[in-house]
């Protein structure tokens, strides 16, 4: 069973998110491309851009370079498209700006390599994905990132493939625990109250921190992010406070500082955009939960499958079959070994 079997007919827009570099995200992308090509399924590809970075930083960050097939729809930044190896027909120049020019939607005319650098916020990704469907893609795959620097979230897609592997830790059990923890974060309860949801969207839009008090509106604190602001937020809580909305990422230090200065945090739910915005080590998460910290999200991520890579670039590896079996048992989700199945696909393609 391949990724496309899991996606096709059920979801139209999916994201691929990797647990760190070299977890095999690009391999997953390439595999989806091959599977789709084999089955005559037309793909649309883009990535979540990194907003607010200077161009030199953007061009240095590793955008996935993928080999695309004729007929594939691709959304990427203008400067990248003009220098790409694949031959691309321009379908639409969107109004969505990146530091490398507007995002342009193209159709691949001749196979080749292309880099993906899509728009940097949710609304734009959603629009670009929809446009690619209109231009004929059967499935749109968004290369997502667990990244503190982007305001965009894989939550805009219908389902997510999580790429994990030996790179996460030398201990197989540890990798499995970390992966399960990541999935737990992705699946955190969504905020239910409509009013709070709309406050949260507002706060995220304005990239500040908001406190929702019982019976009142939202108090916006003039902090750009909550990175080192735990104490300020903590002091702003009252016994009537019910929610704290974080527009950026939520880190361990913020929670530690916050619960050190106020007893009211137990009555409060911490709200983040989605599970990719939480950067708390698993041990601390367990500790925080015991102390009564509750986190909710605006957009829970639905993990449809997990890909594993038993080889680490550091030079060690796990017994592939054992790793696969244990991961499957622990997660209760479809798990695909990108390296194992690579052979089978190879046979299908070249054999």
């Amino acid at each position, binding site marked *: 069973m391949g990724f496309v079997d899991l996606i096709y007919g059920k979801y139209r827009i999916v994201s691929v998110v990797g647990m760190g570099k070299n977890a095999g995200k690009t*391999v997953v992308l*390439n595999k989806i491309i091959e599977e789709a090509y084999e089955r005559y399924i037309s793909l649309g590809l883009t990535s979540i851009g990194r907003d607010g970075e200077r161009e030199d930083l953007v061009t240095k960050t590793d955008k996935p370079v993928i080999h695309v097939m004729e007929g594939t729809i691709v959304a990427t930044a*203008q400067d990248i*498209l*003009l220098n790409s*190896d694949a*031959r*691309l*027909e*321009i*379908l639409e*120049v969107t109004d969505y700006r990146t530091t490398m*020019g507007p995002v*342009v939607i193209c*159709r691949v*005319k*001749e*196979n080749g390599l292309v880099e993906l650098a899509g728009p940097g916020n949710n609304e734009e990704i959603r629009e670009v994905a929809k446009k690619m469907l209109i231009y004929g893609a059967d499935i749109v795959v968004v290369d997502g990132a667990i990244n503190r620097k982007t305001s965009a979230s894989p939550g805009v897609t219908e389902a997510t493939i999580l790429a994990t592997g030996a790179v996460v830790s030398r201990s197989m059990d540890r990798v499995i625990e970390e992966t399960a923890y990541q999935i737990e974060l992705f699946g955190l309860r969504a905020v239910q109250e409509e009013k709070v949801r709309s406050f949260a969207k507002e706060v995220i839009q304005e990239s500040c921190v908001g406190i929702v008090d019982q019976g009142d509106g939202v108090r916006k604190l003039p902090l750009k992010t909550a990175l080192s602001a735990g104490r300020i937020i903590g002091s702003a809580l009252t016994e009537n406070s019910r929610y704290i909305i974080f527009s950026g990422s939520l880190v361990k230090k913020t929670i530690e500082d916050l619960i050190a200065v106020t007893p009211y945090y137990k009555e409060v739910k911490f709200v983040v955009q989605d599970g990719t915005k939480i950067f708390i080590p698993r041990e601390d998460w367990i500790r925080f939960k015991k102390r009564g910290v509750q986190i909710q999200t605006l957009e829970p991520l639905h993990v449809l499958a997990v890909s594993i890579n038993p*080889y680490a670039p550091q*030079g*060690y*590896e796990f017994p592939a079959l054992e790793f696969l079996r244990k991961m499957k048992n622990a997660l209760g989700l479809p798990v695909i070994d990108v*390296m194992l199945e*690579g*052979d089978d*696909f*190879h*046979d299908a393609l*070249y054999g």
Partner: protein
Amino acid sequence: MMRFMDKKTFQEIGLREILDWVPTQTDYGKELKSKLVPYGTSQVQALRRSFEELRKFRKGLKSSDYFLWNLKGYLSEIKDIKGSLERVMKNEVLNEVEFFEIKNQIMVMEELRDFFMQHPEVALEKFALASVAPLIRALDPDKSRVKTFYIYDSYSEALWNIREEKRTIDGKIMEADKKLRREIYETTGLKPKLNNEILVPKEKKEAIASLKESRLVFFLSETFKSYVFKVSPTEEMKDLREKMQNLKIREEEEEYGIRVKLSQRVRDFNDEIQKNIQILGELDFSIGKILLGDEIHGVEPRIVKDPYIKIREGRHSLVEQRLRKEGKAYIPIDVTLEKGVTLITGANMGGKTITLKLIALITSMAQLGLYVPAREATIGPVSFIYFSSGDEQSQEKGLSTFGGEIYHLKKITDEKKEHGLVLIDELARGTNPKEGYAISRGVIEHFTTLEGISVVTTHFDGLSGIKDLRHLQVVGLRNMDPDKLKKELELAGQGIGVLEKYMDYRLEERDPEEEVPKEAIMIARLMGLREDILSRAEEIMEIENHEPPRSKENKEGE
């Protein structure tokens, strides 16, 4: 615009905001709007023609439910391509995205051209677009009629050949790769992965030995548990890949040559495209003017020669909108102004300031070719408009209210021959009443010698007696029974709402000699000022009435 009115006037009379109300869809329309210049006193014919055209266009546009929708659809596809045209005129070579945008735009131009041919109702002469069909053919060599762009194979035989060869070699590389992998599998029993690596656990000694012997792979690295080998490409494959690289370079060179030629083609059509861009802007802005007219329930003003303003049921759209939001009705104003000076007197809170702004707004809108918020308007263009709100504060020059006013007056009074429209709210109120009166008298007497139209509001008595002066008065509360008002106020408990309800903002022509109405004490009373203060004020008035005229009210009164 700045020669016609200064920034402060532009802002204060509400024209800046009204222009924001003119919707434009394209950058071209926006640009046209931002560079808008009023028709001058010598351009009466041109201004009339502009209104005639707009009338014709409006009639056409309203004749079908679809026209507006259709035209807006075309305009929604328009992006600014002036940058690319500039580049092409500097002999620079455009890139694929630029060709895409130009192709898109000229295709829209051609579609719009067809649309105008099919619908003469909306096809003004000035909307006659130039044909760009030959350029479309150049950018759409396969006649696909699709608004996408690609350096198509059909651009040159050389390109076609290069790409054909690329495809052949690509096939050969795949073939060779397949063969090599099969051979490795057959000789070693191992399959290379997608990245061409073969990973063997160290315990598989036999396999390692065969890999080490094989000339098809080479040893890459060693990890804790395994060895990594990599497929070594055959001479044939190396050769093919090199050929592929060379082909890609040749392809890029060929594509560049095609882009040079296409850029040249675009250059040949620069005049036509520029003309069409102008038309797109005009079309966009014309639609904007009509939509603004609908929004403010505007009418086309009649344009006459020489400074003249006649407004029937004029409304200040910004005030009207505010009142509508508060659920209140706006009372329209009639006013006629001719060359010379008109004095407006009347009650505090009688809307004199708004009336001045309305006169300025309607006159300027008419001269900009916009529909005006009135039932009827006749406008003779003026050469400039100046509005003084009487509370000038020129911060950077460090002038007080009075200083600011005088600073501007100095400039205005020097422009004797100009057919300007000068509107001054409470002339010289920022200084002591005695001198204020004297200066006002001097200024107004000077204004009567000017060629343009001047309107001055004042609380000073005795100014209306100046020769050649018209005197208009706000009806105010004059026709109201004070006792009835008082009762109403007692019921309401709060003054301003009741005052607004009964205040008659209309203007009446009065005898020039007639005194400024004395309603300030009454209004103060209606608004609930302490009775002991008011009776004292009435006592003082009794005495003052035997003395020569001067300002009756506290200058901070309004």
